[in-house]
Protein backbone atom coordinates (compact mmCIF):
# COMPACT_ATOMS: atom_id res chain seq x y z
CA UNK A 1 0.00 0.00 0.00
CA UNK A 2 2.79 2.35 0.99
CA UNK A 3 4.53 1.76 -2.30
CA UNK A 4 1.38 2.58 -4.26
CA UNK A 5 0.79 6.06 -2.75
CA UNK A 6 3.58 7.87 -4.58
CA UNK A 7 2.46 6.32 -7.85
CA UNK A 8 -1.06 7.52 -7.23
CA UNK A 9 0.17 10.99 -6.32
CA UNK A 10 2.26 11.15 -9.48
CA UNK A 11 -0.67 10.07 -11.57
CA UNK A 12 -2.91 12.69 -10.01
CA UNK A 13 -0.25 15.38 -10.40
CA UNK A 14 0.29 14.47 -14.04
CA UNK A 15 -3.43 14.60 -14.65
CA UNK A 16 -3.58 18.01 -13.01
CA UNK A 17 -0.70 19.31 -15.13
CA UNK A 18 -2.32 18.11 -18.34
CA UNK A 19 -5.51 19.81 -17.25
CA UNK A 20 -3.70 23.06 -16.44
CA UNK A 21 -1.77 23.10 -19.73
CA UNK A 22 -5.02 22.73 -21.63
CA UNK A 23 -6.62 25.60 -19.79
CA UNK A 24 -7.17 28.98 -21.34
CA UNK A 25 -4.43 31.58 -20.83
CA UNK A 26 -5.01 34.30 -18.31
CA UNK A 27 -3.98 37.94 -18.05
CA UNK A 28 -0.71 37.02 -16.32
CA UNK A 29 0.32 34.61 -19.04
CA UNK A 30 -0.56 36.96 -21.86
CA UNK A 31 1.23 39.79 -20.04
CA UNK A 32 4.34 37.63 -19.78
CA UNK A 33 4.13 36.61 -23.44
CA UNK A 34 3.78 40.25 -24.52
CA UNK A 35 6.69 41.32 -22.31
CA UNK A 36 8.85 38.56 -23.75
CA UNK A 37 7.90 39.52 -27.31
CA UNK A 38 8.76 43.16 -26.61
CA UNK A 39 12.17 42.15 -25.29
CA UNK A 40 12.84 39.92 -28.31
CA UNK A 41 11.77 42.69 -30.69
CA UNK A 42 13.86 45.31 -28.91
CA UNK A 43 16.88 43.05 -29.00
CA UNK A 44 16.37 42.27 -32.71
CA UNK A 45 15.85 45.91 -33.61
CA UNK A 46 19.18 46.84 -32.03
CA UNK A 47 20.86 44.49 -34.50
CA UNK A 48 18.87 44.46 -37.73
CA UNK A 49 16.02 46.00 -39.67
CA UNK A 50 12.81 44.47 -38.34
CA UNK A 51 9.92 43.16 -40.34
CA UNK A 52 6.88 45.42 -40.20
CA UNK A 53 4.87 42.40 -39.06
CA UNK A 54 6.45 42.25 -35.60
CA UNK A 55 5.04 45.60 -34.51
CA UNK A 56 1.67 44.84 -36.08
CA UNK A 57 1.40 41.45 -34.38
CA UNK A 58 2.52 42.89 -31.05
CA UNK A 59 -0.12 45.62 -31.27
CA UNK A 60 -2.73 42.99 -32.15
CA UNK A 61 -1.61 40.93 -29.14
CA UNK A 62 -2.02 43.93 -26.87
CA UNK A 63 -5.45 44.65 -28.32
CA UNK A 64 -6.48 41.01 -27.80
CA UNK A 65 -5.29 41.12 -24.19
CA UNK A 66 -7.20 44.34 -23.60
CA UNK A 67 -10.30 42.67 -25.02
CA UNK A 68 -9.84 39.71 -22.68
CA UNK A 69 -8.90 37.18 -25.36
CA UNK A 70 -5.76 35.95 -23.62
CA UNK A 71 -5.27 32.83 -25.74
CA UNK A 72 -5.15 34.93 -28.86
CA UNK A 73 -2.91 37.47 -27.14
CA UNK A 74 -0.37 34.78 -26.24
CA UNK A 75 -0.45 33.32 -29.77
CA UNK A 76 0.03 36.73 -31.40
CA UNK A 77 2.77 37.78 -29.00
CA UNK A 78 4.67 34.56 -29.69
CA UNK A 79 4.28 35.15 -33.42
CA UNK A 80 5.54 38.74 -33.06
CA UNK A 81 8.67 37.50 -31.30
CA UNK A 82 9.17 34.78 -33.89
CA UNK A 83 9.07 37.34 -36.71
CA UNK A 84 11.75 39.36 -34.93
CA UNK A 85 13.92 36.25 -34.64
CA UNK A 86 13.39 35.48 -38.32
CA UNK A 87 14.45 39.03 -39.25
CA UNK A 88 17.71 38.42 -37.38
CA UNK A 89 18.17 35.05 -39.09
CA UNK A 90 17.68 36.61 -42.54
CA UNK A 91 20.14 39.39 -41.75
CA UNK A 92 22.77 36.93 -40.52
CA UNK A 93 22.37 34.80 -43.64
CA UNK A 94 22.53 37.86 -45.89
CA UNK A 95 25.78 39.02 -44.27
CA UNK A 96 27.35 35.93 -45.81
CA UNK A 97 25.85 36.11 -49.29
CA UNK A 98 24.94 39.69 -50.34
CA UNK A 99 28.26 40.18 -52.14
CA UNK A 100 27.27 37.47 -54.63
CA UNK A 101 24.65 39.78 -56.14
CA UNK A 102 27.11 42.59 -56.93
CA UNK A 103 28.08 42.71 -60.62
CA UNK A 104 31.79 42.01 -61.06
Amino acid at each position, binding site marked *: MKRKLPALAITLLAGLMIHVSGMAADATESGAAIAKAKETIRDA*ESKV*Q*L*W*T*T*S*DILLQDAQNAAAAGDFDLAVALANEAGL*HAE*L*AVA*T*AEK*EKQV*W*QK*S*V*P*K
Partner: protein
Amino acid sequence: MKSLLIACFLFVVTANVYATPEQDRLALREFFTQRFPDLDLNEMINGLYAFDEGAREQWLEMEDFPPYEIAIDKGEEAFNTPFANGKSYADCFENAGIGIRQNYPRFDAGSGEIITLEYAINQCRTDNGEAPLPWLTGQLADISAYMAYTSRGNTMNVVIPDDPRALAAYEAGKEYYYTRRGQLEFACENCHMQSAGMLLRADTLSGMLGQATHWPVYRSKWGEIGTLHKRFMECNAQVRAKPYEAQSQIYRELEYFLSYMSNGMELNGPASRR
Protein backbone atom coordinates in the same frame (compact mmCIF):
# COMPACT_ATOMS: atom_id res chain seq x y z
CA MET B 1 56.34 29.38 -57.98
CA LYS B 2 54.12 28.50 -55.04
CA SER B 3 54.28 32.01 -53.60
CA LEU B 4 53.53 33.45 -57.03
CA LEU B 5 50.39 31.34 -57.24
CA ILE B 6 49.34 32.45 -53.75
CA ALA B 7 49.93 36.08 -54.70
CA CYS B 8 47.83 35.65 -57.84
CA PHE B 9 45.08 33.95 -55.85
CA LEU B 10 45.05 36.74 -53.26
CA PHE B 11 44.97 39.35 -56.01
CA VAL B 12 41.95 37.73 -57.63
CA VAL B 13 40.14 37.34 -54.31
CA THR B 14 40.80 40.87 -53.12
CA ALA B 15 40.00 42.31 -56.52
CA ASN B 16 36.60 40.68 -56.34
CA VAL B 17 35.80 41.49 -52.73
CA TYR B 18 37.22 44.99 -52.60
CA ALA B 19 36.18 46.53 -55.90
CA THR B 20 36.57 50.29 -55.97
CA PRO B 21 33.48 52.47 -56.37
CA GLU B 22 34.49 53.19 -59.94
CA GLN B 23 34.89 49.48 -60.69
CA ASP B 24 31.43 48.95 -59.20
CA ARG B 25 29.95 51.70 -61.36
CA LEU B 26 31.51 50.38 -64.57
CA ALA B 27 30.46 46.81 -63.74
CA LEU B 28 26.91 48.02 -63.17
CA ARG B 29 26.82 49.78 -66.54
CA GLU B 30 28.14 46.61 -68.14
CA PHE B 31 25.42 44.62 -66.38
CA PHE B 32 22.72 46.81 -67.90
CA THR B 33 24.43 46.87 -71.29
CA GLN B 34 24.30 43.07 -71.35
CA ARG B 35 20.76 43.04 -70.00
CA PHE B 36 19.38 45.64 -72.43
CA PRO B 37 21.71 45.65 -75.46
CA ASP B 38 19.37 47.86 -77.51
CA LEU B 39 18.78 50.45 -74.80
CA ASP B 40 20.65 53.74 -74.57
CA LEU B 41 21.66 53.61 -70.90
CA ASN B 42 21.31 57.38 -70.64
CA GLU B 43 17.56 56.85 -71.05
CA MET B 44 17.51 55.16 -67.66
CA ILE B 45 17.38 58.56 -65.95
CA ASN B 46 13.70 58.41 -66.93
CA GLY B 47 13.08 55.32 -64.82
CA LEU B 48 10.33 53.01 -65.99
CA TYR B 49 9.71 55.23 -69.03
CA ALA B 50 12.95 53.91 -70.48
CA PHE B 51 11.25 50.51 -70.80
CA ASP B 52 7.52 51.05 -71.11
CA GLU B 53 6.62 52.80 -74.37
CA GLY B 54 2.93 53.24 -73.59
CA ALA B 55 3.59 54.74 -70.17
CA ARG B 56 6.31 56.90 -71.71
CA GLU B 57 3.86 58.50 -74.13
CA GLN B 58 1.48 59.36 -71.31
CA TRP B 59 4.37 60.73 -69.26
CA LEU B 60 5.62 62.90 -72.12
CA GLU B 61 2.16 64.37 -72.49
CA MET B 62 2.08 65.05 -68.77
CA GLU B 63 5.43 66.81 -69.03
CA ASP B 64 3.77 69.51 -71.16
CA PHE B 65 2.22 70.76 -67.92
CA PRO B 66 4.36 69.03 -65.29
CA PRO B 67 2.73 68.58 -61.89
CA TYR B 68 5.97 69.54 -60.10
CA GLU B 69 6.01 73.04 -61.58
CA ILE B 70 4.20 74.55 -58.61
CA ALA B 71 6.76 73.01 -56.27
CA ILE B 72 9.59 74.65 -58.22
CA ASP B 73 7.91 78.06 -57.94
CA LYS B 74 7.18 77.64 -54.25
CA GLY B 75 10.70 76.35 -53.70
CA GLU B 76 12.24 79.34 -55.46
CA GLU B 77 10.22 81.74 -53.34
CA ALA B 78 11.19 79.95 -50.12
CA PHE B 79 14.82 79.73 -51.23
CA ASN B 80 14.99 83.49 -51.77
CA THR B 81 13.16 84.44 -48.58
CA PRO B 82 15.71 85.63 -46.00
CA PHE B 83 15.88 84.03 -42.55
CA ALA B 84 15.08 86.09 -39.47
CA ASN B 85 18.79 86.88 -39.10
CA GLY B 86 18.91 88.38 -42.61
CA LYS B 87 20.90 85.54 -44.15
CA SER B 88 19.50 83.08 -46.69
CA TYR B 89 19.98 79.62 -48.17
CA ALA B 90 22.32 81.09 -50.75
CA ASP B 91 24.78 81.90 -47.96
CA CYS B 92 25.05 78.21 -47.03
CA PHE B 93 25.96 76.73 -50.41
CA GLU B 94 28.68 77.04 -52.97
CA ASN B 95 27.70 79.10 -56.01
CA ALA B 96 24.86 80.50 -53.90
CA GLY B 97 23.07 77.14 -54.22
CA ILE B 98 22.51 77.40 -57.97
CA GLY B 99 23.39 74.46 -60.24
CA ILE B 100 24.95 72.29 -57.53
CA ARG B 101 22.47 69.42 -57.08
CA GLN B 102 24.68 67.00 -59.02
CA ASN B 103 27.35 67.16 -56.29
CA TYR B 104 25.08 65.69 -53.62
CA PRO B 105 25.31 63.67 -51.47
CA ARG B 106 28.78 64.71 -50.43
CA PHE B 107 31.14 63.52 -47.73
CA ASP B 108 31.88 66.06 -45.02
CA ALA B 109 35.42 65.51 -43.76
CA GLY B 110 34.78 67.59 -40.64
CA SER B 111 31.95 65.51 -39.25
CA GLY B 112 32.68 62.32 -41.19
CA GLU B 113 29.04 62.31 -42.27
CA ILE B 114 27.26 61.98 -45.59
CA ILE B 115 25.41 65.18 -46.37
CA THR B 116 22.44 64.89 -48.69
CA LEU B 117 20.98 68.02 -50.24
CA GLU B 118 17.93 67.90 -47.99
CA TYR B 119 20.16 67.38 -44.95
CA ALA B 120 22.21 70.42 -46.00
CA ILE B 121 19.07 72.54 -46.46
CA ASN B 122 17.91 71.79 -42.93
CA GLN B 123 21.45 72.21 -41.60
CA CYS B 124 21.43 75.66 -43.20
CA ARG B 125 18.19 76.47 -41.42
CA THR B 126 19.30 75.32 -37.97
CA ASP B 127 22.69 77.04 -38.36
CA ASN B 128 20.72 80.26 -38.92
CA GLY B 129 18.34 79.81 -36.02
CA GLU B 130 15.40 78.45 -38.01
CA ALA B 131 13.44 75.30 -37.20
CA PRO B 132 14.17 72.31 -39.44
CA LEU B 133 11.53 71.37 -42.01
CA PRO B 134 9.84 67.95 -42.26
CA TRP B 135 11.94 65.61 -44.42
CA LEU B 136 9.46 63.95 -46.71
CA THR B 137 7.19 66.49 -48.37
CA GLY B 138 6.29 70.17 -48.22
CA GLN B 139 8.65 73.12 -48.22
CA LEU B 140 11.84 71.08 -47.93
CA ALA B 141 10.90 69.07 -51.01
CA ASP B 142 9.93 72.31 -52.78
CA ILE B 143 13.32 73.90 -52.10
CA SER B 144 15.06 70.71 -53.16
CA ALA B 145 12.97 70.73 -56.37
CA TYR B 146 14.01 74.30 -57.13
CA MET B 147 17.69 73.54 -56.51
CA ALA B 148 17.46 70.46 -58.73
CA TYR B 149 15.75 72.52 -61.41
CA THR B 150 18.64 75.01 -61.46
CA SER B 151 20.98 72.04 -61.97
CA ARG B 152 19.14 70.35 -64.83
CA GLY B 153 21.41 69.22 -67.61
CA ASN B 154 24.45 69.01 -65.35
CA THR B 155 26.22 65.69 -64.96
CA MET B 156 26.03 63.68 -61.74
CA ASN B 157 29.33 64.11 -59.99
CA VAL B 158 29.28 62.50 -56.55
CA VAL B 159 32.77 62.31 -55.08
CA ILE B 160 34.15 59.64 -52.78
CA PRO B 161 37.32 61.19 -51.42
CA ASP B 162 40.36 59.26 -50.32
CA ASP B 163 39.11 58.92 -46.77
CA PRO B 164 38.33 55.55 -45.18
CA ARG B 165 35.18 57.00 -43.59
CA ALA B 166 33.82 58.01 -46.99
CA LEU B 167 34.59 54.61 -48.44
CA ALA B 168 33.00 52.90 -45.42
CA ALA B 169 29.84 54.96 -45.94
CA TYR B 170 29.78 53.99 -49.62
CA GLU B 171 30.27 50.31 -48.73
CA ALA B 172 27.48 50.46 -46.13
CA GLY B 173 25.12 51.88 -48.74
CA LYS B 174 26.18 49.23 -51.21
CA GLU B 175 25.61 46.42 -48.72
CA TYR B 176 22.19 47.83 -47.94
CA TYR B 177 21.24 47.88 -51.62
CA TYR B 178 22.18 44.26 -52.19
CA THR B 179 20.87 42.81 -48.91
CA ARG B 180 17.52 41.05 -48.79
CA ARG B 181 15.24 42.34 -46.04
CA GLY B 182 11.69 42.36 -44.79
CA GLN B 183 9.24 39.48 -44.56
CA LEU B 184 9.24 39.22 -48.36
CA GLU B 185 13.06 39.00 -48.37
CA PHE B 186 13.63 41.42 -51.21
CA ALA B 187 16.77 43.45 -51.79
CA CYS B 188 16.63 46.71 -53.77
CA GLU B 189 18.62 44.77 -56.34
CA ASN B 190 15.91 42.13 -56.80
CA CYS B 191 13.50 44.69 -58.23
CA HIS B 192 15.81 47.24 -59.83
CA MET B 193 18.43 44.97 -61.37
CA GLN B 194 17.12 41.43 -61.72
CA SER B 195 13.60 42.56 -62.56
CA ALA B 196 14.22 45.97 -64.13
CA GLY B 197 11.87 46.57 -67.04
CA MET B 198 9.56 43.77 -65.90
CA LEU B 199 6.08 44.09 -64.50
CA LEU B 200 5.32 43.92 -60.80
CA ARG B 201 1.57 43.64 -60.95
CA ALA B 202 0.66 46.62 -63.18
CA ASP B 203 3.88 48.58 -62.63
CA THR B 204 7.03 48.43 -64.72
CA LEU B 205 10.09 48.40 -62.51
CA SER B 206 12.78 51.02 -63.07
CA GLY B 207 16.46 50.14 -63.29
CA MET B 208 19.12 51.07 -60.77
CA LEU B 209 21.08 53.30 -63.14
CA GLY B 210 19.70 56.83 -63.07
CA GLN B 211 17.61 56.17 -59.97
CA ALA B 212 19.18 59.12 -58.16
CA THR B 213 19.20 61.70 -60.95
CA HIS B 214 15.65 63.03 -60.82
CA TRP B 215 14.65 63.75 -57.22
CA PRO B 216 12.47 65.06 -55.71
CA VAL B 217 9.61 63.49 -57.60
CA TYR B 218 5.92 64.23 -57.99
CA ARG B 219 4.28 60.81 -57.78
CA SER B 220 0.70 60.49 -58.86
CA LYS B 221 0.03 57.97 -56.10
CA TRP B 222 1.31 60.51 -53.53
CA GLY B 223 -0.49 63.44 -55.14
CA GLU B 224 2.44 65.66 -54.17
CA ILE B 225 6.16 66.07 -54.54
CA GLY B 226 8.32 64.00 -52.19
CA THR B 227 11.95 63.28 -51.44
CA LEU B 228 14.03 60.23 -52.24
CA HIS B 229 13.96 59.11 -48.62
CA LYS B 230 10.18 59.03 -48.74
CA ARG B 231 10.59 56.53 -51.56
CA PHE B 232 13.19 54.53 -49.61
CA MET B 233 10.72 54.24 -46.74
CA GLU B 234 7.95 53.23 -49.10
CA CYS B 235 10.10 50.57 -50.80
CA ASN B 236 11.07 49.13 -47.42
CA ALA B 237 7.45 48.97 -46.29
CA GLN B 238 6.44 47.30 -49.56
CA VAL B 239 8.71 44.35 -48.76
CA ARG B 240 7.55 44.49 -45.13
CA ALA B 241 10.78 45.82 -43.72
CA LYS B 242 10.31 48.41 -41.00
CA PRO B 243 11.46 51.69 -42.56
CA TYR B 244 14.22 53.72 -40.96
CA GLU B 245 13.81 57.41 -40.30
CA ALA B 246 14.25 59.75 -43.25
CA GLN B 247 17.82 61.09 -43.35
CA SER B 248 18.96 58.38 -40.95
CA GLN B 249 22.61 57.49 -41.38
CA ILE B 250 21.92 54.30 -43.33
CA TYR B 251 19.54 56.01 -45.78
CA ARG B 252 22.09 58.77 -46.38
CA GLU B 253 24.72 56.11 -47.02
CA LEU B 254 22.34 54.31 -49.37
CA GLU B 255 21.76 57.55 -51.27
CA TYR B 256 25.54 58.12 -51.44
CA PHE B 257 26.07 54.71 -53.07
CA LEU B 258 23.05 55.00 -55.32
CA SER B 259 24.01 58.47 -56.51
CA TYR B 260 27.59 57.45 -57.22
CA MET B 261 26.25 54.69 -59.45
CA SER B 262 24.55 57.41 -61.54
CA ASN B 263 27.73 59.43 -61.94
CA GLY B 264 28.20 60.66 -65.48
CA MET B 265 24.47 60.69 -66.16
CA GLU B 266 22.37 63.80 -66.70
CA LEU B 267 20.65 65.36 -63.72
CA ASN B 268 16.98 65.73 -64.64
CA GLY B 269 15.15 66.52 -61.44
CA PRO B 270 12.54 67.24 -60.40
CA ALA B 271 10.47 64.66 -62.22
CA SER B 272 7.04 63.09 -62.33
CA ARG B 273 6.25 59.42 -61.93
CA ARG B 274 3.13 57.32 -61.65
